[in-house]
Structures are given as structure tokens and as C-alpha cells.
């Protein structure tokens, strides 16, 4: 069976490494080198103990010869950048003297790569780069096993996408809810008529069901994950505020309007997709619309 790490994409591997090293080194000792502004100078992270990190997740299922070639090329290309970007890196590091360059990869499959690293170390030392501690410098391939606590932590971050089972609502339960919640139910009925005209009864049924689901969902979220609950509620409030401005331009209120609100909600809540299951995310879009209709945050006049 493939391990958790085997299933990570190259981008996910990078994020996993960042979480792992941040935990291992602590905030004060760890720097991420952002790449949005003219690249990252060939560095992913560096740490106060004098380590430069690069992450690399080669594709699976390649033969050994190709695997070694890919890793060697990565090492070679990135080490070259140490000299090419000497001045910029030196400014970035301030007074940190570098004693190791590490390629973080899911596994090291070949002893030849250790020899290759040793060969590259000598080449770098001979370059006499100002921020390299030539007497102690090494080039090394590491896996997450070298950072055990950080690995466990990063894994827990990745596997903790919240997935709260949604309430399954029967027709009887819907009827019961309608009879016990006359104010909200009347609000939904009135607004469904305004939006859908004569074909409003099906829409009303859907809104009631979605309302019941999101009500229960938010209660569970608030109970088990209060920080995420606060984020979701913030997003909902911001989205409502946003609609206050855009609704000025709505020329007609109809099915299309409803679709637009749901689509806009989807976009607004998508920022939580890393920590919440797709099913839970989906429930928020129509769910909040139902909540706004029932609780009169959204009305039609």
C-alpha cells in the first residue's frame, strides 16, 4: 500500500516540507524564500543553523537510471545557483554562514546519490562562495525521517481535512421543522414565491432542507472546530457585505440571481478547501443562501 507521502503531489510535498520544518525549527529559526517576486534564487527555505533547503518530489514509477538522473540534475541545477546568485543570497542570509545544502525528497533510493552529493560538495567548496563555511560544508539528501516530530505534525495537518457528515433530512422531518419554525418557514415561503413564482414549492423544499443541514453543520463546526467556525462565519459576513454592494446592479431577481449567489458563495468559501472536505464546502454555498433567506439577512422588496 502506498504511504501517505507517496500520494503527495510535488506541490503538496513542498507544503508538507514547509510545515514539517517550521515545526522542527520553530518560527524564529526558519525562513521561507518567497518566489512570487523575481523567483526564489534557487532556495526553498533556510534555517538559523546554516542549512539551505530545496524540495524535490520526482515522479513515481520511473526506472532507477532515470530516477538518479533526475535527482542529480536537480542537485546540479540548484547548486549552480548558489554561485550565480551569490550576492543576493548573501544579503538574504545576512550573517548566517551556510554549512549544509539539503535536498528534501520523499526517499533516497540509491547510494550513488550520496557519492554524487560528495562530489558536488567539493565543487562548491572550490567556488569559494562568500557565505559558505568551506571547512564544514556538506551536500546531502534528506527524507522526512530525519525530522520525526515535524513529520508527524505535518502529516496531521494534511490529513485533518474536516468532514462533518451532513444531516439527512426526510420529508417528515421537513414537515415537522416547518410546523415548529413558523417564522423562518414563512420567510422561506414568501421569498421562494418572489423568486420562483408558481414553481416555488420545489425550491422552498430545497431551501428548508439546506437550512436544516447548515444549521446542524454549523452547530457541529462551532462545537468541534471553533476557529474554523469563526473563519467560515467571517467569510459569510464578508460575502453578505459584498452582495450588499453588487445587488445594487441586479436588474432582475430570478433563478439566475439564485445561481449567481450560490456560485459567488462557492468562490468565497473556496479559501477553506484545504481544511474542509469538498462535501462540507459544497454545503456552505446553498446553505448560507438558505440561512440568509430564513433569518432575513436577505430580503426582496
Amino acid at each position, binding site marked *: 500500500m502506498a504511504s501517505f507521502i507517496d500520494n503527495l503531489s510535488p506541490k503538496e510535498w513542498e507544503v508538507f516540507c514547509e510545515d514539517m520544518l517550521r515545526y522542527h525549527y520553530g518560527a524564529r529559526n526558519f525562513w521561507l524564500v518567497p518566489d512570487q517576486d523575481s523567483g526564489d534564487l534557487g532556495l526553498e527555505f533556510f534555517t538559523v543553523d546554516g542549512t539551505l533547503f530545496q524540495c524535490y518530489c520526482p515522479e513515481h514509477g520511473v526506472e532507477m537510471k532515470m530516477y538518479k538522473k533526475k535527482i542529480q540534475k536537480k542537485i546540479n541545477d540548484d547548486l549552480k545557483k548558489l554561485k550565480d546568485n551569490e550576492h543576493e543570497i548573501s544579503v538574504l542570509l545576512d550573517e548566517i554562514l551556510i554549512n549544509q545544502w539539503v535536498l528534501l525528497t520523499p526517499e533516497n533510493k540509491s547510494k550513488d546519490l550520496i557519492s554524487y552529493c560528495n562530489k558536488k560538495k567539493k565543487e562548491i567548496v572550490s567556488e569559494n562562495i562568500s557565505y559558505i563555511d568551506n571547512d564544514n560544508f556538506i551536500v546531502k539528501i534528506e527524507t522526512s525521517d530525519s525530522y520525526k516530530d515535524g513529520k508527524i505534525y505535518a502529516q496531521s495537518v494534511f490529513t485533518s481535512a474536516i468532514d462533518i457528515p451532513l444531516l439527512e433530512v426526510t420529508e417528515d422531518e421537513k414537515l415537522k421543522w416547518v410546523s415548529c419554525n413558523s417564522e423562518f418557514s414563512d420567510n422561506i415561503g414568501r421569498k421562494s414565491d418572489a423568486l420562483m*413564482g408558481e414553481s416555488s414549492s420545489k425550491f422552498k423544499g430545497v431551501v428548508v432542507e439546506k437550512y436544516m443541514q447548515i444549521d446542524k453543520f454549523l452547530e457541529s463546526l462551532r462545537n468541534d472546530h471553533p*476557529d474554523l467556525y469563526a473563519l467560515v462565519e467571517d467569510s459569510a*459576513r464578508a460575502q453578505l*457585505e459584498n452582495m450588499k454592494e453588487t445587488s445594487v446592479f441586479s436588474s432582475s431577481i430570478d433563478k439566475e440571481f439564485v445561481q449567481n449567489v450560490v456560485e459567488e458563495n462557492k468562490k468565497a468559501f473556496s479559501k477553506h478547501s484545504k481544511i474542509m472536505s469538498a462535501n462540507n464546502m459544497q454545503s456552505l454555498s446553498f446553505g448560507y443562501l438558505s440561512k440568509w433567506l430564513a433569518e432575513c*439577512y436577505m*430580503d*426582496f422588496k
Partner: protein
Amino acid sequence: MMIEKESIKVVISDKAYPLPIEMRPLWRICLIIISIAVVSGEKKYLDVKKVNILVWMIIRKLRWVEYENYLLGRASDIPLVSVDTATYKAVEFSMSKNFVELKDGRLYLSSKGKDLYEVLVENGIMIDEIDFLKKFGKKLSNDKLKGLTGGFL
């Protein structure tokens, strides 16, 4: 009755969103105070991590049986505990209002904090929570704490 489509306008209400009671700072400050006062004994200080977990527990009345079973070692299943930064914020409020003092990872109850605890007791506020803390608060050992948080708190 159907409204004429052309005349319909969307109105987004300005009414406030309700803030759940456990998110209200004063409520949470009181939970912090009773946790330290009841569980710490004579010394009147408690590890900030323990305060965080105890506050998490006393907020969730419906799960008290589950917490009780775990703390008393009657169940091996570890109850869910998640991140709740509102308690950390309330700790900061408590410090700035001089109810508690933070030193070496411990929260010390100040004389003002002790006074607040007395007010809560005299007025019969948070009776159930204080009772839960009296019965089970001291059972939250370092091992149980680590079990609940996985050592990540």
C-alpha cells in the same frame, strides 16, 4: 403572492450576527478564572495548556460524560480537542485586566481574579462548571493532557 419581477429589489439587512455565548470575552474570562481557582488548590496557578483544555471541556456540557470517562481512565478513546484561539485571546484580556498573570507558562490568579471568583460563587454563577472542575479538574494530568493534544498544544 407573487411580486412583479421588475419591481423586486434585493435588500441585505444590517442586523448584527449573534455572537455565541462561549465566544463572549467576559464569559470566557470567567471560565478561565474558575478553572484556575478550583483546580490549582492553594497555589492558585495552573499550566496555561491545562487551562486551555479545561475551558474547552467546561464549555461542552453535552460531552461531560465522555470527558469524565477519559479523565478517570474508564475509556481509552481520546475525546476530540481542537484549536480554540478564543481562549488565548481571553487569557490576554484577563492579563490586561489584571485578573491573572502569566509567568513561565503558568497562569497565576491575582487578588482581583480571586475576588471575581468569589463574586461568581456568591451569585451562584457557573455552578455546574465549578462542580465539574471540582470533580474531575485535577484528573487532567500531564499524560492526559499530552494524550488529548498529541503534544502539539
